């Protein structure tokens, strides 16, 4: 209020009004934003949460984009899916095609199939929307899976994020079922064959199978009920659950604050990165357009699901090379590999485990194991602390090995779904391929576990070596006596930290069998199992380098190797002081930069814990 204004009767009513002067420290635009925000805040009290969210810090890493891809493809799916519903007719009613795609003229088909062909040929831009929708469905499921891998291998599912991991697991399961209901809708020959198989799965349920199938399909297969029912599930039921869980997923990410990779300046008590406004607004917002743009380009250039070539569904034609969309591949592969002798008669009844297990047990089982893993791991490690710093996968060799084991199992099932295509393309016998895959399914996963664990351990050793002896500089030096050495540069402190920051973990141990009074303590079977699993989990761990070890390595390069191999190699004898600290093995090195010199050599002890 300017002092010159004449007082008016109603001024007291306007005492709270925000005027330009009140907030004008900056530009006019700021003032306008301020008064609009003020209007909103007067009614909603949102100033504080808004500025909190705008200032929120997100860490930066390429692997954090995987979840973003899933989120953005979900948005693309909702947008394009809504457009498609305006023309798609979810009905199995029979019509004769008379549209503009000549090869199908005069052929009887369902309204669902006809409307899908119409979207592809008679609605302008309809085909591009359909193809974007299908491509982004594939992208959605791929990105969810790879995002899950990232979360798993970095241990991001640990406390406090177990609930979010479970939500994510459910989302992943729902996403592939949403995909299945979606590609079944056009009622073409390929997807109809998939539905036919799905009906077979339901029939295989012990005792209730035929009832289940008749209830779901509204009678005999295919019937007229399944298309509208699938439609409701696909456009209403599953999307509603997915959006609800997705919202919870995101809210929990905000509540927990994003995890971050270990590195200099990053601790378990902070999050280092860029604020949402403006950096992430631009980066993540821009990334949405990048994902959408690339999906649209794929849809423009690569045909997907050309249902007009398959034709309408009919139960009898041959459909060679029929594969489902990729995310259902593992279930299809399981069906192909599961042996037929597992079907047998129980008294007067048929138990068709050859269908029931691979189709209706394997998928929920895989997802259940994934969902409970965080709880199993924390039981095994006994670790109940919050974790916000991610593990580097090599630093959790058992977990990484188990993850790769699961992925190899999944991949073999996935490859099995293409056994016929492999047979044709490579000119091999389908029987040999199938039998090989059956054996591989049992042999490869344990092998993958073992190999991965060994690789992780050797990567840890390499880190250790890098910290102790520095980085190879590529400079080879000849000494006066004619010996050759490669110059090693010690790692800078900031780079070293990433390699030495991990915790040194030890397995859970049983408490002493006998207590202080000499009375035998009972350890339950459960405790013994836990101790056993825990030592399996932590076995063969490679501990992070400690300052003392680094000092020892600097003092005498052979010391550590000698400790490890149990013998003294003793041939690192380089007397020329010019190369101290730079020759391989760090023989006799004592560079000026060495913070943790051992006091025996008379150097000033350094480092935070050095004060006496």
């Amino acid at each position, binding site marked *: 209020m300017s002092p010159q204004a004449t007082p008016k009767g109603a001024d007291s009513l306007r005492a709270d009004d925000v005027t330009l002067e009140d907030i004008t420290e900056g530009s006019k635009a700021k003032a306008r934003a301020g008064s609009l925000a003020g209007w909103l805040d007067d009614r909603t009290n949102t100033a504080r949460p808004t500025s909190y969210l705008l200032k929120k810090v997100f860490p930066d890493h390429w692997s954090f984009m995987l979840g973003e891809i899933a989120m953005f493809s979900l948005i693309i799916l909702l947008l394009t899916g809504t457009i498609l519903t305006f023309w798609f007719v979810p009905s199995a009613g029979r019509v004769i095609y008379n549209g503009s795609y000549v090869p199908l003229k005069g052929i009887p088909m369902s309204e669902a199939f006809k409307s899908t062909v119409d979207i592809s040929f008679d609605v302008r831009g309809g085909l591009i929307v359909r193809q974007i929708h299908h491509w982004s469905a594939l992208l959605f499921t791929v990105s969810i899976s790879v995002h899950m891998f990232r979360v798993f291998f970095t241990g991001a599912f640990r406390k406090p994020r177990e609930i979010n991991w479970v939500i994510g697991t459910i989302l992943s399961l729902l996403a592939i079922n949403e995909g299945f209901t979606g590609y079944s809708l056009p009622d073409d020959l390929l997807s109809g064959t998939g539905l036919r198989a799905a009906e077979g799965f339901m029939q295989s349920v012990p005792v209730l199978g035929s009832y289940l199938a008749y209830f779901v399909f509204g009678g005999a297969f*295919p019937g007229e009920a399944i298309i509208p029912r699938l439609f409701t599930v696909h456009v209403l039921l599953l999307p509603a659950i997915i959006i609800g869980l997705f919202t919870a997923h995101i809210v929990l990410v905000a509540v927990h604050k994003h995890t971050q990779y270990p590195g200099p300046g990053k601790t378990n008590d902070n999050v280092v990165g860029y604020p949402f406004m403006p950096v992430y607004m631009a980066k993540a917002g821009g990334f949405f357009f990048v994902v959408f743009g690339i999906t649209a380009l794929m849809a423009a250039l690569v045909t997907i699901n050309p249902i007009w070539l398959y034709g309408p569904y009919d139960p009898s034609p041959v459909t060679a090379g029929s594969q489902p969309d990729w995310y259902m591949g593992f279930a299809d592969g399981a069906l192909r590999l599961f042996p037929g002798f597992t079907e047998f008669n129980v008294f007067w009844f048929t138990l068709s485990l050859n269908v029931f297990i691979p189709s209706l047990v394997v998928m929920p089982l895989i997802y259940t194991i994934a969902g409970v893993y965080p709880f199993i791991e924390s039981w095994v490690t006994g670790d109940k602390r919050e974790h916000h710093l991610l593990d580097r996968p090599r630093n959790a060799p058992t977990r990484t090995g188990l993850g790769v084991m699961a992925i190899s199992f999944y991949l073999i099932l996935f490859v099995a779904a293409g056994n016929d295509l492999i047979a044709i393309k490579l000119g091999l016998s389908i029987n040999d391929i199938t039998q090989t895959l059956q054996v591989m399914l049992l042999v490869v996963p344990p092998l993958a576990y073992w190999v991965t664990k060994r690789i992780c351990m050797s990567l840890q050793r390499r880190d250790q070596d890098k910290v102790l002896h520095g980085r190879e500089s590529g400079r080879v030096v000849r000494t006066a006596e004619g010996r050759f050495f490669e110059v090693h540069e010690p790692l800078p402190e900031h780079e070293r930290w990433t390699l030495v920051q991990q915790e040194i973990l030890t397995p859970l141990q049983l408490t002493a069998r006998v207590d202080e009074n000499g009375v035998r303590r009972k350890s339950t079977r459960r405790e013994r199992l836990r101790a056993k699993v825990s030592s399996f989990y932590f076995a063969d761990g490679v501990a992070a380098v400690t300052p003392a070890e680094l000092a020892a390595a600097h003092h005498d390069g052979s010391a550590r190797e000698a400790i490890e191999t149990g013998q003294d190699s003793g041939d690192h004898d380089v007397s020329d002081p010019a190369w101290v600290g730079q020759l391989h093995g760090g023989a006799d090195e004592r560079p000026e930069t060495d913070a943790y010199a051992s006091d025996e050599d008379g150097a000033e002890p350094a480092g935070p814990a050095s004060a006496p």
Partner: protein
Amino acid sequence: MSEHGTEIEGSGGIPERFTNPGLPPHVSRSADLDERAAHRAERQVATLFTLSMVATVIFLVAYFSIDQKTYRFIPGIGQANLSNVVLGASLGLSLLCIGLGAVHWARTLMPDTEVAEDRHPQRSSDEARRDAVETLAAGGTASQLGRRPLVKYAVGGALALVALPQLLVLAGGLGPLPKADLSTTFWRKGMRLMRDNPTPTPIKASDVTLVSVFHVMPEGIDKSPHVLEEKGKAAVILIGIDPALIQVPKERDWGHDGIVAYSKICTHVGCPVGLYEHRTNHLLCPCHQSTFDVAQDCKVIFGPAHRPLPQLQITVDAEGYLIAAAPFQQPVGPSFWERG
């Protein structure tokens, strides 16, 4: 530390673990230091946004000007729907350019100094937790739920039962009971075997030469009110095979002069078993590769199916056309509990 050599034993000055050195020094980008580089970045960002506008205009023009049915040869793709390619490519570019522009803007011109925000444990304070539990307990006591068991059991019962009507309506209104539907097909004694064409024609026994294959439906199935449902169970594959190769007497008896008819619905999960390899007399299901040997009464010789394909008993009528001598003697298609 003792295992690491005597020299460093008890070396008090050395900490147990390395300490976090803190954030590395910030490295400035060229746009931070050089005004010309910043201008260049500005122009690049603006160019990307402009390209997006151009692509959008191309989309609008193409939407109205390119005929939906134009097919053109496009290098690298082949014959393709021109409208789809142009619409998709221009839409894709208009989106992609916005995205790239925004990301480039963020990376070159927006601040790139990392900031740290503190985290706090998820756990609430002990006081808050105690308060929550106490409020809950006090509310429970105030409701007198514990003191009045009659109310407790009554409200529990009412809430448990109230979901039943909805569930009943849903479950009760779902499809009919299967009854014998899965065990019967459209086939009746005396029905002709018809070619599975848009215009079905009967098949003379003399038409079925050695190693020829016919996809067959029962006569009159196209007049059924439930064509697809009936086809899904009644589809049959008819094969001419050298009678000498047939190893099972029943198969020879149920066929006609080396012509045998089997259900085409796979006993695994119901795909049509339509791939016949005449050198080996094997029938292969394209879905999961179950393989049936026609010479051995369609026994499963490979793959995940367990039961042989049911055989349809056939004969010829007075005019020499193939007819069903009897309906299927067992349920066709995938197994189910009560099929026995």
